């Protein structure tokens, strides 16, 4: 029992727990829409695009949330705009901007003397080091994202499922698309400190992907994704505390394990079912 209660004696652990549960919740909600819209790659791109913003904020002594938000939201809107305007496929635009922004971040970073030390934190997160002020900022951003989704969940769902019919019946589909890209960007900003740039995409995509294996109704899919998204950080943080290993990586590993279990036992993809189907000719 002390194995579970001991870590709670540390203020940093409780803060980290609160932060990562919140991050898991927001990521699961946004990730559900992302997966259904086929935007998983966009999550990866925007997290990398946030990097120069984080570094710039660090250089200027500004809050990192501000820099990351400007860089990620700016890139999200640019990707949306170029894809709508240009004759370039969306994934191509994403590839160009994401690598370009990340390179700019590395360039900025290399201007800092003795920069190697903090790089690890930026790339892989350090939720155990989250400050009280950062936790408050994270909570405010989470309320904003979840609030917008609460107001517009129907409209987001319809425009995801059938954008043509939704637009014809009067929903502002293009505006909703931009708004959603903005929500992805904000979610990534929220998640950076917990899991870092490289692993954010897993927080976004894995819970929803796991839920897709288990549910064929939207509400249930969202519920399962939220359940995984909020439980995985708890498991991951304890494992990290006990084994003294990287917290962000363990959170993602717990989610990945959940996905693999669902893949093996799920009603549609499960190995048991596959075996049963292949047995009789």
């Amino acid at each position, binding site marked *: 029992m002390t194995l579970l209660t001991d870590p709670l004696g540390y203020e940093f652990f409780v803060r980290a727990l609160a932060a990562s549960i919140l991050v898991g919740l927001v990521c699961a909600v946004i990730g559900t829409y992302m997966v*259904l819209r086929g935007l998983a790659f966009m999550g990866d791109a925007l997290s990398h695009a946030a990097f120069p913003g984080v570094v710039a904020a660090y250089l200027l002594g500004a809050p990192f949330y501000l820099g990351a938000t400007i860089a990620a939201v700016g890139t999200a809107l640019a990707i949306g705009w170029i894809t709508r305007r240009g*004759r370039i496929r969306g994934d191509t635009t994403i590839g160009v901007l994401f690598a370009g922004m990340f390179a700019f971040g590395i360039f900025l970073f290399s201007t800092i003397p003795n920069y190697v030390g903090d790089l690890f934190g930026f790339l892989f997160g350090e939720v155990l080091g989250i400050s009280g002020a950062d936790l408050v900022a994270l909570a405010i951003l989470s309320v904003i994202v979840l609030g917008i989704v*609460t*107001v*517009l969940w*129907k*409209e987001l*769902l*319809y425009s*995801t*499922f*059938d954008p*043509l*019919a*939704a*637009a*014809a*019946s*009067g*929903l502002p589909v293009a505006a909703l698309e931009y708004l959603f890209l903005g929500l992805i960007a904000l979610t990534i900003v929220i998640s950076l400190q917990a899991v870092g740039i490289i692993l954010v995409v897993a927080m976004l995509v894995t819970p929803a992907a796991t839920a*897709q294996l288990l*549910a*064929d*109704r*939207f509400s*249930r*899919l969202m519920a399962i994704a939220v359940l995984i998204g909020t439980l995985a950080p708890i498991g991951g943080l304890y494992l990290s505390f006990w084994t003294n290993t990287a917290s962000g990586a363990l959170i993602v590993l717990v989610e990945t394990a959940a996905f693999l279990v669902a893949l093996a036992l799920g009603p549609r993809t499960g190995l048991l079912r596959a075996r049963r189907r292949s047995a009789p000719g």
Partner: protein
Amino acid sequence: MTSPHREPDRHPETVRLVGHAGEPAPGHEHHAGHTGGPPLSVWLVDVSVGYEDKAVLEDVDLQLPAGSLTAVVGPNGGGKSTLLKLIAGLLEPWGGTISVLGGRPGEHARAMAYVPQAEAVDWSFPVAAGDVVMMGRYPRLGPLRRPGSRDHAAVAHALDLVGMTAHARRQIGALSGGQRRRVFLARALASQPDLYLLDEPVTGVDNATQEDLMAVLDAEARSGKTVIASTHDLASAAQHFRSIVAVNGTVIAQGDASLVLDADVLMRTYGGHLLFVGERAVVLDDAHHHDEAPGGEVHHHEGTPGRGTRRR
């Protein structure tokens, strides 16, 4: 002219091969009938549209009164879907004037239901048939508001009309092709529109589904709603619709549904894809299904134009 009332079976206009009549541009404020017939639902004057810099439709003139049940026919790539999207407000015209339900396209969006081609839909999406139909209610509900008893009643009624009540809780991908089309028509019905824009609503479905869905659309048209549906099934167009619009790069002809039997109209619509063998017309519509046809394969769709057989 025909009387403006009591003859829902007859299209108010006689057969009319479209030329350049130099008609006045439709004002958005008045959409009353031009000849004293029912008010016009859709009125296009000299409209052109395309994608990027390639024109798909040019010099389109079209008038469809309220209560009409119109099939849009023509070869693939001829602009059937584009015409529907134009009326739906999904495409900006390059030029010309469009009036839809007495306003700009999209101005009365909530009075309009658009159903895309089956190919445009992700059938693995995690929604049940009933959820899809409820989406038809979302635009009028607006943000924040959850569906209420009236919405649930409208959904139940729509599902009942298309015979899908028993399947309301099944995921859409688990339904047959015909059942999926029923569900999508139910979504349109649930939104209680004045104008239906349906892209290939009965393509590739079984006969029973086709009869059922066309009966529902026929009833909607009789109650004064305007129904416009694209089809490349000429037999279906002649049999189930009251008027047709033949489209190939522009509007070739507009008039009574029997027009699809007219050799001249067929010739001008399908051009080189049409072959007359004695009294039978053969549509060599090798363009359609080109997505799935292996290279070099040509589909011969033969039969009389009135009762042609289609490959499924």
